[in-house]
């Protein structure tokens, strides 16, 4: 098991870095997209509400792998060529944003109605009240579930292996298929994933207890 790491640490570290990088990029953009659609759902415009709902339901109910492969296989045929990392990260962002939208929406709705009424009564516009009053309070509720979404994101980023995204899973698979030491290689890859996800998951559990 040690051999796998000592002989292939460069590839493994590169994969580890790519996994972290694509997870952070996907988290950043899916936070923006997800929060936008979450706000759509609480705005008093029916059409935006429908747009938000459709987006969320579509990307929540289609496998991430199908979305990722669409950007890797179909899009290059008709539009632009995307490398595996980009295609995978786009797929990851769209998929995750639908879950983040649900999380943020639940957070916004958990804020007491009186907060919005109070802000409006003080002369703020709806958007001002949303930005200055509601969202900062909603943020507190959504930190633990967002942390869990990030853990899912790191785990889900393994589908980059399907689209030659050079992530940890891809590198592990490449090492396994050249050395034939599948058993030990996958254990090493698993340990590397756990280095990211396990501490985060314990920290989120601690935060959940503290905030509850």
């Amino acid at each position, binding site marked *: 098991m040690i051999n796998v790491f000592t002989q292939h640490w460069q590839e493994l570290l590169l994969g580890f870095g790519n996994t972290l990088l694509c997870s952070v990029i996907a988290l950043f953009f899916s936070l923006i997209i997800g929060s936008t659609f979450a706000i759509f759902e609480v705005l008093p415009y029916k059409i935006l509400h429908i747009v938000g709902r459709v987006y969320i339901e*579509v990307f929540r*109910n289609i496998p991430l792998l199908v979305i990722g492969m669409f950007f890797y296989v179909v899009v290059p045929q008709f539009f632009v060529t995307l490398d595996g990392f980009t295609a995978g990260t786009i797929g990851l962002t769209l998929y995750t944003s639908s879950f983040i939208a649900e999380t943020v929406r639940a957070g916004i709705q958990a804020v007491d109605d009186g907060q919005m009424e109070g802000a409006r009564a003080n002369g703020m516009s709806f958007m001002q009240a949303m930005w200055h009053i509601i969202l900062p309070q909603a943020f507190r509720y959504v930190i633990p579930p967002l942390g869990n979404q990030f853990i899912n994101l790191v785990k889900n980023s*393994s589908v980059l292996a399907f689209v030659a995204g050079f992530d940890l899973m891809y590198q592990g698979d490449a090492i396994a298929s050249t050395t034939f030491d599948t*058993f030990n290689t996958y254990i090493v890859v698993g340990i590397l994933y756990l280095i990211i996800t396990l501490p985060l998951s314990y920290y989120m559990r601690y935060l959940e207890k503290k905030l509850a």
Partner: protein
Amino acid sequence: MSNLAEAYSWINLRYLLEGLWVTIEVSVISIVLSFIFGSILGIIRYIRFPFLSAIVGFIIDLIRNLPLLLLLFFTYFGLPKIGIKMEPLSAAIAAMTVFESAMIAEIVRGGIQAVDTGQMEGARSVGMTYWQGLRVIVLPQAMKKMIPPLVSQFISLIKDTSLATIIVLPELLYRAQIIYGQNTRYMIPMFIALAVMYFVVCYALSLVASGLERRTS
């Protein structure tokens, strides 16, 4: 347009639907098995037996924090090295069951913990044993709280069966790839078919779940 008609010819469509059947078969077997194992593990973790619960809890945390794809690779490509060989179908079911049992164990534990402690105290004070209190009073209430997270877990299980395409399980995604591999003009129609089929199955399940929720609350 003739493209579409060709792509959705009965032969192709039947081939895809057979794949959808494999997807559903794997999903249903894994859901049933992981619900049984997950509930047992969740209860073990909740009850806090000395040693046993700590060990079970740690193993659950390890499995939950690994990518399912890694478990799938490990089961199909890694385990044969130590003499455990499985066909794609059993390997997929085994990997999914291990992973989902750990996820469901957490949901079950969370559901039981969310029930007010006064319920158990009340049950004990009217003369029930701990087990009676758990079975008759606490679990039925926990079940209600567990339905929404359980269903979203089942939905992600159905979506995750698509990962088994890499171990050559002839499920929906694998068959779509075979079809558009023969003729790239079928690519877009196949991706549309994939999206529609997965969406219909998963969305239908989520509608059933919200119906159930409304009836129990």
